[in-house]
Structures are given as structure tokens and as C-alpha cells.
């Protein structure tokens, strides 16, 4: 990342009623890069994004876009930004096309050809002259991306772009954003509270918790560390016998007994094999359950906890 960053967020802070909703957030976003902004709901993602697009005032710190201070020169700085904040809410009583015309009129130099181009880009050509109220959530999301791209921004900010989409829709958005970053050299900031989604989409991930950006990590590094090990719980009978057998096979990470069940960390691939072996040995298997870890635990584990300290 030797290029100049498109967006620089410096010590960004939002204080509401004495509480620091966002606390000293620093980020640099580079062209061609998708940055994942990850955190549980209420961690300050949306507030940070709202400050970055001028919807909320900044208590401390500043946002610089393409070298221009957002606060000092809002109109110029914001003309470099396209965004969807939370849901892509459009004027439902207008057609998709009228919505785009509406937003195109608010920027300089967006011609009719550009509108048509963007419509084709997001694949809405067939339905663009229908009223938005007839659109599915996925189509609204695409229309939202279309309005964000109209004025050829250098920075695209998408708040929870996969919210409410089905898996196919999520995959479509993901491919689409990757292409935009690669082909148009856009810097893209995507927020989400789902780590798995971010892993597939982003180049870098920043985690925000209680208003603080606690870590920024390259996704490549994350993936290497995650070798598919999962925590699995077996509910079996008889317990002792099963534990003895499992301890025999899994010498490296010995199983533990928790709540009348056996818990062990194992490569996902091994689960059916272990199951077969238990059954072969006359153990009754009632349940095999993968322990879903909350986002933070997963991430702390992946980054080996120590990085945070």
C-alpha cells in the first residue's frame, strides 16, 4: 500500500451526552481496496460512517477525502464520495430511473449517458422504469449502489450492504464490489457485523468495539491462521468410554467433559470420521454440535489475542 490514501480519518470522535460513541478512530482507505468495518451492533460503525459523509457533526478529529477537509469544504469533499447509509431507501413513488435522475441533478456533470451506464452496470436495465415500490430488496440494494456510483466517486461507503439479502444476493454484491475495486480503482468501505462475510469480500478488516477501532488486519493473514479448526460438542452415551476413545485418537488436543457432553477442538473434516468411529465402538451418539463462537471470540482467537494487548 504505497499509494496515497483516498480517505484519511483522524482521531474521529463523537460525543453524545458526555458518552464517547466513537472514540479516536483512525483509518486510511486506499484506492482499489475494500476495507471491512466490523463490529457488533451499536459499536459505532454507523455513527462513524455518518460522520464520514457529513450527516453527523464531528466532535473531535477530522475526515479528509482526496486531500480535502470534509468540514472546511463539504461540497467539494463530498463530491468524491458515494454512499449508502443503512438501508438503501429511495423514493418509492418514483421509478428507479426517476430516482437516479433526481440524484444526478444534484451533482455537476452527470449526463444521461452516465445514468444509462450505471443502470447497465448494476443490471437493472429491464426494471429501471418500474416504480421502486415494486422492487425486491436486492434490486433496491442495486439501485442504491447505482445512485452511489452516478457521479464517479473515488470513495464508496456502504453501510451493511448485505443486510436482508439472500445468499445469492450477497454473493452477487460481493463479486460486484470486488470488480468495482479492481476495475475502477475505487476505495470501498463496507460495514458489517458478520465476520464470515467480511473475510470473503475485504482486503483489510478493522474491528470497532465500544467506539474504538481496536485492530486493523489484512484478511490474508487471518485466513492463514484459520485452518478450519472448530469446537465440537458430542452428546454421547456412555460418556467415560467415549472420552477414553476420543482421547486415544486426539492426543494433541485432549477432549474435555462439559455439562455431561464431550467438547473438543478438531478440524472440520474429521467430524464424520470421529462419528463413524464412535458408532463402530458401540457408543450411542445423540448429538454433534459445532459451537458457534461470537464474533469477538473468533477474532481474538484468530489474531491470537496477544495482538490486542
Amino acid at each position, binding site marked *: 500500500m504505497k499509494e496515497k490514501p483516498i480517505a484519511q480519518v483522524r482521531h474521529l470522535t463523537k460525543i453524545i451526552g458526555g458518552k464517547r460513541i466513537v472514540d479516536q478512530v483512525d483509518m486510511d482507505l486506499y484506492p482499489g481496496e475494500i476495507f471491512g468495518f466490523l463490529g457488533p451492533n451499536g459499536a459505532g460503525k454507523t455513527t462513524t460512517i*455518518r460522520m464520514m*459523509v*457529513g*450527516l*453527523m*457533526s464531528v466532535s473531535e478529529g477530522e475526515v479528509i477525502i482526496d486531500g480535502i477537509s470534509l468540514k472546511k469544504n*463539504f*461540497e*467539494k469533499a*463530498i*463530491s468524491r*464520495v458515494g*454512499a*449508502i*447509509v*443503512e*438501508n438503501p*431507501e*429511495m*423514493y*418509492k*413513488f*418514483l421509478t428507479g430511473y*426517476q430516482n437516479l*435522475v*433526481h*440524484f444526478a*441533478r*444534484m*451533482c*455537476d456533470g452527470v449526463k444521461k449517458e452516465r445514468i444509462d451506464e450505471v443502470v447497465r452496470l448494476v443490471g437493472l436495465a429491464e426494471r429501471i422504469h418500474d416504480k421502486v415500490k415494486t422492487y425486491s430488496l436486492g434490486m433496491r440494494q442495486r439501485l442504491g449502489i447505482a*445512485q452511489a456510483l452516478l457521479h464517479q466517486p473515488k470513495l464508496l461507503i456502504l453501510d451493511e450492504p448485505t443486510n436482508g439479502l439472500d445468499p445469492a444476493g450477497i454473493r452477487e454484491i460481493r463479486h460486484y464490489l470486488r470488480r468495482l475495486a479492481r476495475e475502477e480503482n475505487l476505495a470501498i468501505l463496507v460495514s458489517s457485523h458478520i465476520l464470515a462475510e467480511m473475510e470473503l469480500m475485504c482486503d483489510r478488516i478493522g474491528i470497532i468495539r465500544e467506539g474504538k477501532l481496536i485492530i486493523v488486519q489484512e484478511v490474508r493473514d487471518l485466513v492463514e491462521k484459520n485452518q478450519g479448526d472448530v469446537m465440537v460438542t458430542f452428546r454421547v452415551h456412555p460418556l467415560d468410554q467415549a472420552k477414553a476413545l476420543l482421547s486415544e485418537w486426539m492426543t494433541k488436543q485432549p477432549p474435555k467433559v462439559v455439562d455431561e457432553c464431550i467438547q473438543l477442538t478438531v478440524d472440520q473434516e474429521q467430524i464424520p470420521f470421529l462419528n463413524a468411529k464412535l458408532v463402530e465402538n458401540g457408543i450411542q451418539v445423540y448429538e454433534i454440535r459445532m459451537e458457534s463462537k461470537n464474533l469477538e471470540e473468533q477474532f481474538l482467537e484468530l489474531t491470537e489475542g496477544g495482538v490486542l494487548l
Partner: protein
Amino acid sequence: MIRFLHLVQNENMKIYRRTGTWVMFGLLLVAIIGMAFLMKAHLSSQSEDDWKQSLMKENKSMEIQLRKEEILPHVKDELQKMIAINQYRIEKDIPPMEGTMWEFARDAGKTLIPLITLFTVIIGANSVAGEFSWGTIKLLLIRPVHRSKVLLSKYLATLLFSLVMLFSMFLLLLLVGGIVHGFDGWDLPHLYHDGEQVKEQSMPLHLATLFALGSVELVMMVTFSFMVSTVFRSSSMAIGLSIFLMFAGNQAVFILSKWDQDWIKYLLFANTDLSPYFGDGTPLVDGITLSFSLMVLGIHFLLFHLIAWWLFIKRDITA
């Protein structure tokens, strides 16, 4: 500048692409037709020659009044003007507007302006609050346009809507009035006395002036509703408060005026009816002049705008 016109164009698109707006125009038409039926029963049609006779009779009785000793100077002045106008009518053969499409247009128009006020209040209230409830405010305010321009474009589009409504009403009144009462009075002039002699004025111009004076309250109420909708981001609150104020305000000033307190004249509603200054009745509160009323109106107008603008500029958008 071009960009600003685009903003107004956008607001217009959002007003006229909604079904609700066209329902308003439909309701206006229905109201005008309804008025035509109601007033048809009241308006007595006079035959060609009757009006000269009755004007002469009217003049005679006014002349008798004039001879009385105790007559007040301004009543005397008023009577003399009316006699002169009636005389002018008889001499030049200009029948009065009573029973013509013009009378209908004037009376129905005055009655219907509050309806247009209501419609415009609704449009104005939705203009800002609607963006918040639709969630589109977040897309609207992340454009390279300063917030004050967005707000101004919304206000202008709202006023423009009231103009379109008033103009449509005017045309519909003439059309419906003509169909019901006949178009034969269409070229009647309006007569008035300028203090020295009787003068003729074109009737449409006369009505336009009347309607414009009647729209002072419209502008004030729309500005008020616009402010409330910006402050509370709720269109129903803006509509409710404005309607309440419109009905209660005039009543309250009327009742308070019996009380003879000096501060009443500073109230908005003591000053929204400007027609007394143009020779139509007397002001609700004694001792106020046109310039005083304009000042009170101006201060309220600026105050409403200042509050709306300040909050719209400063507010964190959390919708």
C-alpha cells in the same frame, strides 16, 4: 444557479409524482362544483332592466341617509362613493356583478382559499418530514449541495405548489361559474372610486388582487407548518398544529379583541387579514395600520424561517 433550479425541479417531481397531490386537485374541482350548486340556490338572477331600477332605489335611500344630521364623516364618504359608482353604472350601462360568474368566482374563491391553505400545509409538512420518514434524507444530504439550498428549494417548491393551486382554482372558478351562470358577463369591469372619480378595472385583475390578499394567511401558515415539520420531523404534527392554529388563531384574536388589550395587536392572527387596508371591512383590532401589520407578518416570517434553517443546518441526521 442552474444547480439550484435543478433542486426545485427535484422537489416538484416529488410533489407531482405522488397520487395524493392529484387527489388534492380532484378535491378542489369537486369543491368548486359543490359551491356552484350551493350558491346557485342563493344567487338571485336579475333580469336585464331590473338592476337599473334597484340601483336607483338604492341611491335614493342612501341620499336620504346622507341628509341626516348625525351621520359620521367616514360613513358619509363611503355612501357618496357608492352613489357615484351606482350612478356610473346606470349612465354607462354596466350591470353589477351580482348573479354573474364573477360574483360566484369571488365568493367561492374566498371560501376555498383556506382549503388550498390546508393542501399546501400538507405538502409543506411532507416536504421535510417526508424525507425523514422515508429515510431518503440520508441520500439527499450527502450530495455536494449545502443543506440551506436543499431547504430553500423545498420551501420554494411548496410556495410554487400553492401558486399552481390558486391559479387552477381561478381558472376552474371561471369555467364552472361560466357554465352555471353564463359567460355573458365575462367582460364586465370592476368599478371602484379612487377618491375623486369612478374608475374601471379589469375583473380578473380585481379577483387576483383579492385572492392575493387572501393568501397572506396561506403563506404564513405554510411557513409555520414548514418550520414545525423541520423541527419535529413529523408531518402529522406539522399539519395538526397548523390547522389548529388556523382555526383557533383567528377565533382567539377575535375574542381577545373585545378585551381591549394593547398587546393583542402584536399577535400574528391580528394581522393576517390585510383586506381592511384595501377598503374591505375594518381591522380586527383597532389602531393598526398596513405597515404595522406587514412588520408583524415579516417578523413572524423571518422567525419561522430562522428556526427551521438553524435546526436543519445543525442537526445530526439519525433517521
